[in-house]
């Protein structure tokens, strides 16, 4: 509370302006979503009811959510051991991988999807024609920078060499060391990468659209084109889902972060 008392009056003004910038669009969307589809007047929850009772909403939400989980699992399986090994044995490769991780930022998704469609053409049906195959492969690339930089920060925060050698000297093999010693100590970083991946996959439109898979963002776009008020309700609901994911990240991260800072202080 003392911190607030010391704040300059101008700080309150900036805080207020910032708050208005974020909350006015949300408030407008909320008010819009509460209007009746028939009369156009406030206030009814009919649009929310329409969304909740729409089978496509639940189906696409489930597809996107499962895609996100699969992307997270594949990304963690690929990147955790890779980044661990790079930190442990090949530190000179780290800048190379950091550079590669920036490529998904530089290459537009539309270019990437065309390239990927050509690259995977001729691959087995179960992979190419299914979102669980092709889309996940594309999303792992899309999530690469978020996953890499989160995990990299996590690995840099711990003494990978000493922890690994201590574990080895006590009889643990490399896989056991990774699972029992390293992974628990980069949990916050892995969670951060996972939630960012979740947010990206839940909102990814271009790749899913061009590769003709029906995911949640495509449903959102369809509703937006055809139903004005339910589209606003759907927007707020997807916003809430993303926020819930971010809040859980904040909750877990705060608990772990507080401990990590004490550890750093002890050193």
């Amino acid at each position, binding site marked *: 509370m003392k911190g607030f008392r010391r704040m300059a009056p101008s700080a309150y003004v900036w805080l207020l302006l910032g708050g208005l910038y974020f909350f006015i669009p949300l408030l407008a969307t909320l008010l819009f979503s509460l209007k009746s589809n028939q009369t156009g007047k406030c206030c009814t929850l009919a649009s929310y009811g329409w969304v909740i009772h729409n089978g496509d909403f639940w189906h696409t939400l489930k597809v996107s959510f499962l895609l996100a989980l699969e992307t997270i699992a594949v990304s963690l399986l690929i990147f955790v051991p890779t980044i661990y090994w790079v930190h442990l044995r090949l530190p000179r490769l780290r800048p190379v991988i950091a550079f590669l991780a920036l490529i998904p930022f530089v290459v537009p998704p539309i270019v990437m999807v065309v390239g990927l469609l050509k690259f995977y053409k001729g691959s087995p049906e179960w992979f190419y024609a299914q979102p669980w195959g092709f889309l996940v492969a594309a999303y792992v690339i899309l999530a690469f920078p978020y996953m890499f930089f989160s995990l990299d920060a996590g690995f840099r925060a711990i003494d990978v060499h000493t922890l690994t*050698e*201590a574990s080895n*000297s*006590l*009889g*643990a093999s490399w896989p056991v060391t990774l699972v029992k010693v390293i992974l*628990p*100590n980069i949990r916050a970083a892995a969670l951060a990468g996972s939630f960012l991946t979740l947010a990206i996959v839940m909102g990814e439109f271009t790749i899913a659209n061009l590769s003709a898979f029906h995911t949640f963002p495509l449903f959102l776009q369809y509703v937006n084109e055809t139903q004005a008020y339910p589209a606003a309700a759907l927007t707020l609901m997807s916003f809430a889902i993303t926020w819930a994911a971010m809040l859980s990240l904040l909750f877990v991260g705060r608990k772990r972060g507080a*401990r990590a800072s004490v550890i750093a202080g002890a050193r």
Partner: protein
Amino acid sequence: MAYLELVDLHRDFGTVKALDGIEIQLGQGEFLSLLGPSGCGKTTALRLVAGFDRPDAGAIVVDGRDVTRVAPNKRDMGMVFQAYSLFPNMTAEQNVEFGLKIRGRNRAERRKRVGELLELVGLGHARGRYPHQLSGGMQQRVALARALAIEPRVLLLDEPLSALDAKVRVQLREEIRRIQLELGITTLYVTHDQEEALSVSDHVAVMYGGRIEQMGTPSEMYSSPATPFVAEFIGTMNRLEATVVDGTSGEVDHNGVRMTVPAAQGLSRGERVLVLIRPETLELEPAEGNGGPADLVGDVLTHTFLGPVTRLKVIGSDLELIADVPTSRVDALPIGMKVRARVPEVGVKLLSLQTEPAAPAAPAPAGR
């Protein structure tokens, strides 16, 4: 028969020879310190024994079995690191228990052993604490208990006290020695602190440029250094370059000052030697004039209070001496006074200047 043997170990890092054919034989239950300056190869040697690195040539034999190519997790070596190495996600108890879990010991056995070891290192009350809730000294105690829990064949300690403050360092090194003697565990200890090495070890090996300069008991190392480097590194030593004048009487000449050193008897005239005199064996007395040809004469430049003794620096023409004088007597030798140093008849060592080691081209990388 030796329990731990390092046989002609070589390890190069590029053009730098980190280890250049070191040989060590250590009996079961003995405590050996590898002592030397940064980059001398002591940590490299320890890491080879632990299995974290492979030698380019040579062998590591433990209890008659060659373990040179054995993976670190199969060697049964307990290691305490310089950096705090406790697993941050585990309590003190879980850290100590880790190695036993890996070995598949049952829960009751694990609990008993962990309890015993935490009591042994004086941390029975802190078993539920996480590493960040422990001080540096406590963390190293837990690390020691963790290394001992697996009943290692050899205990390896890589400068475990260097991150601790002076008081804790002294306390913990005594505890390490007590525990080592109690358990009778063969121990290899790396340190750059000669006081630490001399105070806890059965044997000390002084390393320089990837080689072992000398290995012996602490008292041998202190009283009979075999090379000028060892003489310089272990304790403080006055080094006077001299020429043998008379090999029969043992007379040597240092910049015109004649001294009789019994150790020079039998040497040939004109031979270049290094006269080594410990500061505590030099006797100082007030001098008048510039002294005679047999006198080491100079002015007192500084006093450094060391408790029971005060260290005096004496500077004369072509002469620089360090002498330890009982603090109760130091008022009689104030700064600026001209003093004469008397070289004792016993306790003076002589080394041929040919034994001076060649300085290494570049220091070997310290640590990993």
